[in-house]
C-alpha cells in the first residue's frame, strides 16, 4: 500500500508542477496589473509550440528521389535526410535528441516578446475596466491565439520525444533502499518536477533579492505610493507580464514530452489553474504554488482505485469541491491577503 500512495504522491507533484507554474504566472499578472488574464493558458500552449517549431527547424530534410526503390504504390521512393545531421554529423543528432530542452532557448525570447506585445497592445487598455471586460477580452485573445496555432500547425497533436537518456523509468524504490522495481517513476516527470522547483525558486529569488523585484513587490502592495516616488511602475509591470509569459512558455515547452500539444492545450489547463489561484489566494505567489501542488496531490490520491471504490468519479471533481469549500470557508484563499476577494 505504501508503494501505491508514494507513487500517487509523485504523480501529484508532477501534476502540481504544471498547475503551480501556470498559476504562478497568472498570479504575477493579477498581483501586479490587477488583470484576470484568461489568455494565460494560451501562453502555456504557445510555449509548447515553440518546442514543436524548434524541432521542425532541426529536422528540416532534403528530399531526393531514389529511382531504384519503389514505394508500395509503385512510385519512386523519396529519400529524406535531416539537414542538421548532414551538416553537423553526430553533433546534429545530439541537437535533435535534445530538441525539447534546447527549445527553451527559443521560447524565452519568443514568450517575452509575446507577453510584452500582449500587454502593450491589448491588455493595458483594459486596466481600468471591470474584471468582466478583462475576462472577455483575454478569453477572446486565447481563442485567437489557439486558432492561429491551428492554422499554422493543424488541429492534431504533435508528439515531442524526450531525450533518449531521459526515457524510461527511474527505480526510486532501489534509491530508497527498497526492493528493485517496486517504485518506478518516469524520469522525465521527475525532471519536470525539478525544473518547476528551479523556475519557481528563481522567480521568488528574483522578486525577493533584486532591486527590481523589491520595487515590483512594493508596487503590488501600493502602486500609487511607488508612482509618487517617481518610479515608472508601469514599465516594470509590463516586464513582469513578460516574465509571467516566459514562465508559462517554459512550463509548456517542458510539458510536451508528457502530453503532445495541440491548439486546445491552453484551455485544458486554464480552468484548473484559475481554481488553483483562487484556492491559493488571488495575488498570493506562495499561495499559488502551494495550492498547485496541494491540488495536484489531492487529485492524484482521489484517482486511487481504493478511493474511487467508495466515491466513484471523485477524481474528476475533487479540485472543484476543494475550491467550493475554500470559497465558503475562507474566501480570500489559503494564503491570500485580507480583503482580496472577500468583499
Amino acid at each position, binding site marked *: 500500500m505504501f508503494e*501505491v500512495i508514494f507513487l500517487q504522491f509523485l*504523480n501529484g507533484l508532477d501534476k502540481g508542477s504544471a498547475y503551480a507554474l501556470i498559476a504562478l504566472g497568472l498570479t504575477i499578472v493579477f498581483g501586479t496589473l490587477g488583470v484576470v488574464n484568461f489568455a494565460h493558458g494560451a501562453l502555456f500552449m504557445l510555449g509548447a509550440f515553440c518546442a514543436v517549431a524548434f524541432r521542425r527547424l532541426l529536422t528540416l530534410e532534403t528530399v531526393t528521389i531514389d529511382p531504384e526503390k519503389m514505394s508500395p*504504390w509503385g*512510385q519512386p521512393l523519396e529519400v529524406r535526410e535531416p539537414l542538421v545531421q548532414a551538416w553537423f554529423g553526430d553533433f546534429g543528432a545530439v541537437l535533435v535528441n535534445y530538441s525539447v530542452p534546447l527549445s527553451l532557448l527559443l521560447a524565452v525570447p519568443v514568450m517575452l516578446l509575446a507577453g510584452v506585445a500582449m500587454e502593450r497592445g491589448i491588455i493595458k487598455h483594459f486596466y481600468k475596466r471591470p474584471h468582466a471586460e478583462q475576462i472577455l477580452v483575454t478569453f477572446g485573445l486565447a481563442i485567437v491565439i489557439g486558432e492561429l496555432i491551428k492554422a499554422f500547425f493543424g*488541429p*492534431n497533436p504533435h508528439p515531442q520525444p524526450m531525450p533518449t537518456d531521459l526515457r524510461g523509468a527511474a527505480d526510486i524504490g532501489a534509491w530508497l533502499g527498497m526492493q528493485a522495481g517496486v517504485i518506478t517513476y*518516469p524520469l522525465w516527470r521527475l525532471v519536470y518536477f525539478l525544473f518547476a522547483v528551479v523556475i519557481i525558486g528563481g522567480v521568488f529569488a528574483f522578486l525577493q533579492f533584486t532591486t527590481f523585484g523589491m520595487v515590483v513587490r512594493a508596487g503590488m502592495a501600493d502602486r500609487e505610493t511607488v508612482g509618487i516616488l517617481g518610479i515608472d511602475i508601469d514599465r516594470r509591470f509590463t516586464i513582469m507580464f513578460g516574465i509571467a509569459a516566459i514562465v508559462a512558455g517554459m512550463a509548456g515547452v517542458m510539458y510536451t514530452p508528457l502530453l503532445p500539444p495541440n491548439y486546445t492545450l491552453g484551455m485544458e489547463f486554464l480552468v484548473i489553474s484559475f481554481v488553483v489561484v483562487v484556492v491559493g489566494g488571488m495575488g498570493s505567489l506562495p499561495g499559488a504554488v502551494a495550492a498547485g501542488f496541494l491540488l495536484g496531490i489531492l487529485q492524484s490520491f482521489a484517482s486511487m482505485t481504493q478511493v474511487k471504490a467508495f466515491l466513484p468519479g471523485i477524481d474528476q471533481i475533487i479540485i472543484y469541491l476543494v475550491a467550493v469549500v475554500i470559497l465558503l470557508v475562507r474566501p480570500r484563499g489559503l494564503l491570500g491577503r485580507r480583503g482580496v476577494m472577500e468583499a
Partner: protein
Amino acid sequence: MTKFHMNRRGVLKGAGAGLVTLATPHFFTKGAWAQDFCNNPTGSTVTFGLNLPLTGTYAEEGADELKAYELAVKHLNGEGDGGLLNVLKPSALKGNGILGKKVQFVTSDSQTLSDVARAGATRMIERDNAIMITGGSSSGEAIAVQSLCQEMGIIFMAGLTHSNDTTGKDKRRYGFRHFFNAYQSGIAIAPVIGEAYGKDRRAYHLTADYTWGWTQEESIKAATEALGWETVATVRTPLGAGDYSQFLTPVLNSGADVLILNHYGNDMVNSLTQAVQFGMRDRQANGKQFEIVVPLFSELMAKGAGENIKGIFGTSNWHWALEDEGSQAFTKSFGAAYGSPPSQAAHTAYVQALLYADAVERAGTFYPPEVIKALEGFEFDGMGNGPTLYRAEDHQCMKSVLVVRGNENPTSQFDVLNVVQVVDRETTTYDPSIFGGDLGPAEPVPMCK
C-alpha cells in the same frame, strides 16, 4: 355480325394503350418516390454528406477518411484510375456518377463529439440536401448520427465505428457498418495472445469511458477470461484524458501482468506512450514479462506511438500490405494521390461510399427503402477483406479480421504493422441476436424539409 378488322393503325393504338396500361403502376410509384423521400436528387448532381472528426481525439483518422472519400467520389465520377470500381464483384457501377448524376460532397467537422456530429449531419441533410451521410471515427458519433438518420429517412454508411452497439442494441434500419466490431476483435485476438503470453495471466483494463470502450472491454474481458486469464481491474478513463499517469500508477502494484488499453486514436498514443514511460514494458510481474495489449489499433496510431508500438498485439479491419487485388488497387490509387498508404479508416470510408453507390445503381433509384433492400444480404468480394456479406439482420458486414502486431524491424516509415493472422469470416461470424436491438422500419419519414 360485325367483322373484326386488323389494320396498322389499330395495332399501333392497341399497343400504345397496352404500354400505357402496363407502365401506369410504375409511373405512379416513381412519382410517389419522387415526392416522398428526403432530398430526392432532381438535378444533375447528388450530394454525399461527410461527417468527419477533423479535430479532436480521432482527428488523424478523420483526415484520412476525408482523403478516401475524395478519392471515392473521383472514381465514382469516372476520374482517376477507377480504384476499386474495377475489382468490386458483382458491381453495377459504371463510373459515370450514380444513376448518371455526378457525385459531389459537403463536409462537417464533428470534432469527435457526438452532439456536434449530430448537428453537422442535420445541417448537411437540411441545408445541403445530402442524400446519404457517411463518416465518423467514434462509435459515440456513429450511434448518434445513425439514430438521427433513421428519424430523417437518410441512409447512414458508418465510417470507423467498432462498438458492438452500433449494429447491436442501437442498430437502425438506415445504418450500415462495413467496419468490424469489438466482439469480432475478441474472437480474433484471444487465441493469438493466449499462445504468445500463455493461459495464466492477470489483466488490467484501462477503458475509454463511452460506448466503444465499454463494449470492447466487455468483449476482450470475455474472450481472455475464456482463455483462463483473470481480470484484476477494469478502470474507466475520460475520452481525451491526455495525462494517464494517475490511471497508470495503480497498475504497477495491482498484481496484473498484462495491461489492456481499450483506447483509440490520440488517447491510445498517449496512454501507450505513458505506459512505456512508466517502465511497463521492462517490468516483470508474477514471474513473467509484463505485456501490453491494444485490442484495436491502426497504422496512424502506430505511427503516432513510434517505438512504443513495437511488438504490441492488436486487431485491424484491413491493412494496405494485404496482397489481394482489391487491397493492392486501393493502396496504389491512394498512395499515388496522397503519397502515403491508406489507413483502415480510409479503407472502410472508401468502401462504404462505393457500396452505397452500387446499391443505388442496383436498386435503380435513390429511394432509401429500395437502397436498403439492395444492401441487405448483399454478398460481394474484391474490396480487400475477402468474400463479404452485408448481413440483413443487423447491417453488420461479415468478413475476415486481421490480427496485427507492431513491427519490430520496420523498413520504411510506413512499415509499422505486421499482419500476424487473417482470421476468416466463418470464425468471426456470430449470432446477431446476442446483442439485441431492433432495426426499425424502412419506410422513410419525410421530415427533412
